[in-house]
C-alpha cells in the first residue's frame, strides 16, 4: 500500500469515527433541546402575535432563526465529515489507479484530508461566531481544496492507461 493510500484510509477512518462520535454526542445531548427550542420559539412568535405583543413575537422569531442557524450547521458538519471520510476511504483503496507520481498523489491525499477535516470544522465554528468573515473564508478555502483535489483525482482516473 502506498503512502497516499495509507493517508487516505487512516485519515478517512479517523474522520468517520470522529464524525459519528460527534453526531452521537449531538443527538444525545443537544439535538432534542435544539429542536424543542426551534419549535417552541416559532410557536411563541405566533402566540405573541395573537396576543398582540409584536416585540415579544419579534424576539421569539429571532430566537427561532438563531436556533435554526446552529442546527443546520451542526447537522451539515456531522454529515459532511462522515461523507467526505467515506469518499477518502474509497479513494484510498483506488488511489493506485490515479495515474500520477506518488509524490503528487500524496499532495492530493493531504489536500483531501486537510480540506475534509477543516471544512466542516469551519462550519461548526460559525455557530459560535455567527457570520464571522474569517470562518466563511476558511470554509470557502477548505471546500475549494477538496474540490481541487477531487478534480485532480478525476483527471488521474481519466489518465488511466491499460496494462
Amino acid at each position, binding site marked *: *500500500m502506498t503512502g497516499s493510500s*495509507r493517508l487516505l*484510509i*487512516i485519515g478517512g*477512518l*479517523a474522520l*468517520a*469515527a470522529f464524525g*459519528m*462520535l460527534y*453526531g*452521537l454526542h449531538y*443527538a*444525545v445531548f443537544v439535538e*432534542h*433541546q435544539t429542536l424543542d427550542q426551534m*419549535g417552541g420559539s*416559532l*410557536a411563541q*412568535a*405566533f*402566540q405573541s*402575535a*395573537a*396576543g*398582540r405583543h*409584536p416585540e415579544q*413575537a*419579534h424576539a421569539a*422569531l*429571532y430566537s*427561532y*432563526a438563531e436556533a*435554526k*442557524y446552529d442546527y443546520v450547521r451542526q447537522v451539515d458538519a456531522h*454529515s459532511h465529515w*462522515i*461523507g467526505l471520510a*467515506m*469518499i477518502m*476511504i*474509497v*479513494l484510498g*483503496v*483506488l488511489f493506485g489507479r490515479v495515474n500520477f507520481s506518488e509524490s503528487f498523489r500524496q499532495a492530493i491525499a493531504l489536500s483531501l484530508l486537510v480540506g475534509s477535516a477543516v471544512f466542516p470544522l469551519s462550519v461548526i465554528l460559525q455557530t459560535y461566531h455567527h457570520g464571522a468573515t474569517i470562518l466563511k473564508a476558511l*470554509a*470557502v478555502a477548505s*471546500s*475549494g481544496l*477538496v*474540490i481541487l483535489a*477531487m*478534480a485532480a*483525482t*478525476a483527471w488521474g*482516473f*481519466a489518465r*488511466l492507461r*491499460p*496494462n
Partner: protein
Amino acid sequence: MSAVAKPSSIHSTFAPMSARRLLVFGGIALVAAGMFFGDIFAVFILHQNAGGQGAALIAANQAVAAGDETAVSKIFGSLGSILEDRGTKVDAHVHMIGAGYLALMLALVQPFVVLSIKTKKTLAALFITGGTLLPVGIFLIHYVGLARSPFAAIGWASILADSAGALLIIVLIAEAWGFRRYLRTRELAEPALPDDNSWERRALLSGGALLILLGFLHGAWYAGEYLYQHERMETAILQSMISTASANDLNTATAQVANFGNLAGARAVNIAAHSHIIEFGLLAMLLSFVQPYVFLSTRWKRRWTQVLLAGFLILPVFVFLELQFGLLAGGIADIGGLMIIVALVAMLVGIFRYTGRLDAPAGGAA
C-alpha cells in the same frame, strides 16, 4: 478482457458467509431498500406532508388574526408532529443508505483488516444488524414517541436508534484496530480484490468521480449563492406573515405561506440534488469493486451498469429541475430512482447467482 474473475481467485476472496460477502450482500440490500423507501416517501408522503405544513401555517395565521393564543398553541402541536413525521422518514432513508455504503466500504478494506475470520464475520453481522436497526429505530420515533420511556425527552425508538448507532461505531473502531495491526505486520489478512480492468469497472470509477465532482461544484455554488440568502428570506417571510396576520390581512399572510412553501421547496431540491449526486458517485465507485462477483454475462453486466449510471444522473438532475418543471420533473426523478433500484437488485441477483456456483470448476455466466 474477462468480465468475471477467475473462480479460484473469487473462491479465495469471496467464500460463502465470509465477512466480505456478508458486507457486500448486506450493503447492496440496505442501499436498495433505502432507495425503495425513499421513492415511496417521495411519491406518497413528501408532497402531502408539505401540504399539511402549509395548511397548519394558514390555520395559525387565522388564529393570530382572531387573537386566539390557545388555537395557535394547538396548531403548532400538530405542526410539530407533521415535521417530525417528515424528518424521521428522511433520516431513516438517509441512514439506511449510509449504512449500506459503509458496509460496501468495509467489504473493500477487509484484506487490510488483520483479525481472525470468526471475529471478522461477527463484526460484519453486527454491522449489518446495526445498519438495519438504526433506520428502523429512527422510523419508529414518530409512532412510539415517549410511550413507557424512563426518560423525559428520549423514547424507546430513539434508544433503539442510538444503541444501533453505537454498535456501528464499536464495529468501526474494531475494524480500525484490525487495520492498525495490518500496518504493523504489512501482511494482508486475505487475498486482495481481483485486479479487474473491465469496462463496467472503468465506467463506474470514472463516472463516479465525475458525479462526486459535479456534486461538490453544485454544493459550492449553492452555499455561495443561496445559503445565507435563503436563511434571511425565511426570517423575513415569517416576520411578514406574523405582522400581516396580526393586522388581520389574511390574504397577504396566506400569500406569505405560499412563499414560505416555495422557499422550503427551493432549499429541499438543492440539498437533495447535492447530496444525491455525491452519494451516487460514491456508490458507483463502491460498486465498481463488486463487479467481478456479479455473475451475469458481460452483455447484461454492461447493460445494468448503463442503467445504473443513467439513473445516478437522472435522479439528482430532475430533482433539481423540480422547481422549474414541477411534478413532471419529479416523476422523471422517481423513474431515475426506480432505474437505480432495478439495477441494484439485478447486481444483487448476480451476486446471489454466483453463490450457487462457488464449487464450479471453471467458467463464467450464461
